[in-house]
Structures are given as C-alpha cells and as structure tokens.
C-alpha cells in the first residue's frame, strides 16, 4: 500500500466550511486523505509524520483563473516596469522611475550580451506613471546604435524602438502616414510604434519574433517557477493559439515529473470557423492530462478600457472618446455559444466594457434555451464595468465572473480621472455586488498585465487602494475570508475544478500554498506581504528557495 504522510502545520486553513481549520493533513498518492488532528489522521493506520511545515500556514494551493504563460516568456527580456517585481528566479527587480533609469538598465543588459548583433528587448514600460513621458529613438540610441533595441509597454500594444531597429525593418524613412507611427520634426518615425500591426514588422529585429500567444518551452518553465513563488498550483493560459506543435510541447513539459503546476490553456477563438473550432477543442480535450487540462475556448469580445477599445454602454467614455471595438461579431459569438453548449465545451469570454458584457448575457440566454446545460459555468472574464443588474442576470444564467481586482490598484486613478469617470470607476470590479448577487466569483491578475500573485490580488479586492493611495469604492470591498475563497474555491469553480482542488479536504489533490504567516490573522493591509515558502502540488513538494 502507498505511504501515508501526515504534515503538521502551525495552522491549516482548509476552505472547507465543515472543518475550516486543522493542524494536520494526511496525504496519500498525491491526494488528501483527510485534515484534522494528528490522532484523527492516525486512525488511517501507519502514517509517517513530516514536520517540515510545523511553523508554516497551509492553504489550498492558489488557483489563478486568468493569466498568460507569456508572463514566463517575457522574463527572458529586461524588466522596465514602474513597480518592483520578482522574476522567476526570485530576484526582485526594482521599478524604474525615469527614462535615464530605463536606458541604464537596458545598457547594462546590452553590455552583458556576447553576440554583437543580438537585440536588447525590454518589457512592461508604463509611461502613465512617468507623466506620460515617452521614450524616443534618441533615448534608445543611447543604449546602442549597433544593436536593435525595443521596449514593449505594459499594455502590450505599444513599443518603443531605436534607430537601428527601424533601419533593420526598413521603416527609417519619411512619408509614413499612419496614426500608429508618430513622426518627429525630421519627418522620420520617433520610434514609438502603436498597435500590433505596426509592431509586427519590427518585432523580429528586437527580440519579439514569436507571437506571444504561443507558449514557448522556456517561458512555460519560468511561468511555473513564478507560480511556486506565489503559492499557485493551478493556473490558466487565457488564451493560447495552440497549434499542434505547441500542444505537444506543452504536454511534454507539463508531464515532466518535477513540473510543479496544473495548467489549463484556453484555445483562442480566432483562426477557425465556429464549427471547426468547437470540433478541434473537443478533439484536444481527449489529449488532456492531470497537469494539462485541454478543452476550453476563450473569446475576446471587446478591447480594454484604458485603451479606449472596450465597448461601453451609454454614456460612454468620460473624456468623450468614441466607443471601442468589437473583436467578434454578435452573430459569430452567438453561433459559438450555441455550438459550445451543444458540445459541452466551456467558454470564457473577455468583456471589459459593460456593453460587451451585456451582449454576452443577451446571446447566452437563447443559446441556453436551445441547448440546456444547467452547469455550463461560462465565465465573464474581467467584466470590469458590470452593474448590479448584469451580475444578477449572470447569476440567473448560471454564469461566473472573474473580476480584475488588480486592475483597480494599477489603473484605478486613470479610470476615475479619465476613462469612465468617478461614478463608474468607483464600482469597477464590484466584488461586493457580485457576491451579493449570488454570482460565483473569482479575482485575477491577468499576468503579465499585472504581476501574478493571488495574495496580492486578494489584498487588492479587500482594500481597493489605487496606486495613488486612495480607497476607491469602499462599498465594493470584500472581507479577507471572501477574498481567500475567491483565489481558491472561487477560481476552481469557474474552471469546473471545485471537486478536485480549491480546498483541503478528503479526496482532493494534495495542492497546498505554504505560507510563512496566517493571512486571516494579519492586518488586511499586509495580506500582499505574506511570504510564500513554496507549494505542494499533487503531493510533490516545491520549496521556492530550491527552484
């Protein structure tokens, strides 16, 4: 018979309402035999007591319901963000606060390169915090005039490049007439490239050659390290293009004995007609393993609020910007919802604006009547501007929401002052209203858009502090226990995994976040500062210090 190990802990927060706390947990075959006292667990027979977690606090492994493997891939480039951020190896990169600091950091990276032709690539630049100062071609020429240099913004939609990069891409010329290519006084591009169409021709020369929606092997490994460091044991890749080679690579890597996470990639909806997409995803589902949960679809319905491309209902954008863009036609959305329901394929929909959310709600209702499926758990991702009526309707229709709690911290001030104005900014990512409306709720980071870290996300939902330090939307705060539920059971529910993970109770996977302090006992303002020792995933132990 397999060995039974009992781990002692300072405290075990189970998220199982019938036994919320325990001191010991018994694990056999990578699953939880039970949680309780040592004497209770000894009734299972011979057990080995392992006391390595005796001074730790155990929680169910955190579940991140909206992230991108790209977060792992980007760390092969130079971090140029405003906020401090830890890399997959645990090194904390301080935020860069000035153009000179960005240049200096890129210079240092360039100096470390042996290949004289290699590009220097940076990521996560966010000029919003630098009084909207933009990097120019001349700034980046200080990094190098012989190497191509490119820095991707946090939005992922803008890139700054140097003269060499423009030259290599054949774009260093006058006569450009494109709103995405601002020109300097000399008539030449300033080096700022706005929008994917204008970034793509330069991408290969500045180290962004791959489509970032395709997971790469190194990125997949880095991503897993970040998960261990943040206590995350199950995470989504929302979404992936998933061609055959990528799926084979993902299967190979995730099935390695020491791969520490369970990954759930959602197939991006573009590229195939609706019937073919559903058929392909049904076929992919058959290849799923415990650690690679294939077989879901992600649809992007609109754009982003800070990019003014989200679809808003009346009265639209606060600054008068025209309404945003649809990324799928309503008829196409409807067809996909019908076919996915009929085939039993789960769909998560990206809707930032409230009009996009409304469209999904309106299209799902008839699709459900035609294809009844009481447990579909289709999930509104981001759903940032939903009002109470929309949350109530979502609950009635059996939908879940995954709200972007981190966004409120990073861009809340921007939304208050510019995009949607005080009233709607105050109710953005309305966790309180969602829970009161009875809609199953998760909260997320959308890493790499904001850093992966479920405890940070919980902190953001509990405190609703913006980057400038204001509490924005006091009434929409949730309490710590609700936030901890959201990053465990809440997210697991949106993924149809609540029977397998999300709590520490008999029968579930032995997935634990191993914490240095008790998140239910600390000041809620310190939730984000709790240290993570590492994880246990499927009974396998992953100390962050040994990654």
């Amino acid at each position: 018979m397999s060995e039974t190990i009992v781990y002692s802990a300072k405290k075990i927060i189970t998220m199982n309402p019938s036994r919320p706390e325990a001191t010991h947990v018994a694990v056999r075959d990578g699953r939880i035999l039970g949680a309780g006292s040592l004497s209770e667990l000894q009734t299972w027979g011979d057990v080995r007591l392992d006391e390595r977690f005796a001074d730790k606090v155990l929680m169910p492994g955190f579940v991140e319901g909206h992230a991108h493997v790209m977060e792992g891939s980007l760390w092969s480039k130079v971090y140029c963000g405003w906020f401090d951020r830890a890399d997959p190896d645990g090194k904390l990169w301080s935020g860069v606060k000035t153009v000179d600091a960005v240049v200096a950091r890129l210079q240092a990276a360039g100096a470390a390169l042996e290949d004289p032709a290699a590009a220097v690539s940076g990521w996560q630049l966010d000029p919003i915090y630098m009084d909207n100062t933009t990097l120019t071609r001349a700034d980046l020429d200080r990094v190098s005039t012989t190497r191509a240099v490119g820095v991707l913004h946090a939005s992922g939609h803008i890139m700054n490049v140097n003269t060499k990069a423009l030259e290599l891409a054949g774009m260093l010329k006058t006569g450009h007439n494109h709103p995405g290519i601002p020109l300097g006084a000399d008539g030449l591009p300033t080096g700022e490239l706005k929008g994917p169409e204008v970034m793509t021709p330069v991408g290969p020369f500045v180290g962004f050659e791959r489509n970032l929606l395709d997971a790469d092997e190194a990125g997949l490994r880095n991503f897993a390290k970040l998960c261990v460091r943040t206590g995350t044991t199950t995470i989504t890749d929302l979404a992936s293009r998933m061609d055959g080679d990528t799926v084979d690579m993902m299967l190979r890597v995730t099935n390695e004995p020491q791969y520490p996470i369970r990954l759930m990639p959602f197939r991006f909806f573009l590229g195939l007609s609706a019937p073919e997409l559903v058929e392909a995803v049904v076929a992919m589902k058959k290849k799923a393993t415990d650690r690679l949960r294939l077989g879901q679809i992600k649809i992007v319905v609109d754009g982003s609020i800070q990019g003014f491309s989200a679809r808003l209902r009346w009265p639209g954008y606060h600054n008068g910007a025209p309404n945003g863009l649809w990324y799928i036609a309503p008829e196409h959305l409807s067809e996909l919802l019908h076919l996915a329901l009929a085939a039993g394929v789960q769909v998560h929909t990206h809707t930032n604006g409230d009009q996009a959310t409304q469209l999904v709600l309106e299209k799902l209702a008839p699709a459900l009547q035609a294809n009844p499926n009481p447990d579909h758990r289709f999930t509104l991702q981001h759903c940032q501007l939903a009002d109470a009526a929309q949350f109530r309707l979502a609950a009635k229709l059996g939908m879940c929401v995954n709200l972007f709690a981190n966004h409120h911290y990073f861009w809340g001030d921007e939304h208050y002052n510019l995009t949607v104005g005080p009233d709607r900014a105050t109710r953005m990512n309305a966790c309180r209203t969602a829970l009161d409306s009875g809609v199953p709720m998760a909260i997320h980071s959308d890493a790499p858009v904001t850093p992966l870290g479920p405890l940070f996300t919980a902190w953001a939902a509990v405190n609703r502090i913006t980057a400038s330090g204001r509490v924005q939307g006091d009434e929409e705060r949730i309490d710590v226990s609700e936030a901890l539920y959201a990053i465990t059971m809440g997210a697991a529910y949106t993924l149809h995994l609540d029977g397998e993970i999300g709590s520490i109770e008999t029968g579930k996977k032995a997935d634990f976040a191993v914490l240095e302090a008790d998140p239910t006992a600390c000041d809620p303002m310190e939730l984000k500062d709790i240290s993570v020792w590492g994880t246990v995933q499927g009974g396998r132990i992953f100390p962050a210090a040994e990654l």
Partner: protein
Amino acid sequence: MIGGYLGAGKTTMVNHLLRHAAGRRIAILVNEFGDLPIDQDLIEAEGEDMIAISGGCICCSFGSDLTAALIKLSELTPTPDHVVIEASGVAMPGTVALSISILPGFVLSGVVVLADGERVQAQAEDDYIGDTILRQLSDADVIVHSKTDLQPNDRAIEAVESWLQAMAPQAKIVPTVQGHVPPDIILGLTGPTAKPQASPHADAGYESLAFREIPPCVPEDLAQKLATGSYGVIRAKGFLRDAEGNSWVIQTVGRRFEAQRGQKSELGGVVCIGRRGDLQAAALHGLLGPAGSSSHI
C-alpha cells in the same frame, strides 16, 4: 481591402473576382478558413494554411496576425500581383488598410466596403453594431451595394443608395447582384496600356474610357478633379506630364486621389471607369481631350 459586416456578400464578391482574374495572380487573405471562403470548383489544392486556386491565385488565412501573413506573402515567388484582404465583419477596414502602408512592397489600392441593401439601414440602428457599420462605411473608397436584386423596385434601390451616400459622402457607390463587380473596380486599373478586358457580363453596366493624348497639366489637380468632380468616375489611373516635362502617375479611387512621380518610359494617357450612364463622357472629353477608346464591361 474588402470590408463590410457579416453577410454583406464579401465572400461571394471575392469568388466572382477569382473567376474573372484574367491572368492576375491574386492572393486572397481571409480571417479563417471554414466558411467556404472559396468556391469548391475553383480550388486546385488545399493545404493547412493555403488554398491553391486555378489561374495562379491563392487563398490564405491570417487568423489574428495580418501583418505576419502579408510579410509571408511578400516572400513568395512569384509575388502575387494583388492581395485582397477580406476583413472580419467587425473590423474597421480603414484601420487595417493603414497598416498595409508600412510594409515595403505593398501599395493600398483602395478600400471596398460591402453593404447589404436589405439590411444595412437596420444594422446601422442596432445598439450593438450600429456605430461599427457606420464607421466601416465611412472608411470606404467604394461601397458595393449588394443584393440589389432582392429589392422590390428601383426606387427602393435608389433610396438605399442615397442613404449610403449620406452616411459615406466620401465614397462612390456601385450596385451589384451576386457580387458581380468588375475586377478593375475592386483591384484598380492597370493603366492605359492595357486593353479593356472582355467580360462575360457585358450587361453589368460599367463603362471605361481611355484618353491617350493628355496635354501637360498639374497632375495633382487633374487627379483631384477626377476623384471629386461630377464625372461619375469610380476609379481612374493615368500617366501624365507636367509643364516641365516630368512624368507622373495618378490614381483615384472613390474620392481619394494621389499623384506621384513616375517613369518616363510609361505610355501617356488616362483610363477612367464608372457606371454606364453615370460616367460623363462629354465632361471628361472636356477635361482630358478626345477619348481614344471606350468600352462597355
């Protein structure tokens, strides 16, 4: 660049175009395969991301990365003569078209937006897609008013056209049934050296006029007049000389025009195409001199 909402007839028109390619090597780029982008009888071979079409044409899907697909096309040997991008039903064709301009080797020939005559006005009132429909129309150089055979009478067709013209004053409007629009309208004219091609749709109602001997002029002014004056010209292309004897190429589509310095070797002259009855031959003679040839296509 072909735009227009779902069901406006983009695919039908593209297939008609492929049937009348007349030796042009056309590459069609579609968002995705699956909704039968190409009529079966035109297909010679099907690969995972490319369909070979009789007459040296091809069709590729670009999914979410148009620029990458265009770069790939530009690396083909031989390179296609024309690339026709069939945008998704919710894309803004003008925005997509702009991104073509930054790629070496590509020149935007025009933005053609289809409007389903029976539905477009109701679509424009729709809470969700109304503004998308209007923005698409406002991006057009040419609006193809499709499915006119489904309209009850000429008056209904005219009512739709005047509505379209009011919504998109910058565009020239052409009516169509089953996507029967001459390739010269969609792709652009090859210039006065080419003979007007014979068309099996001689009754389709288009006319082209060629003018061989154009006196020295201000090419940009002439292009502007052709594009914006009341000559009924949908597209024009010409090779001209200015007063100093420099060679110029002018092109117009809808109300958009451009004049660029050209090669001395090019044969002089201007070709215009428009709807028969709309094309103002007498006024064009006044502007450009005697017509060398005219044909109905």
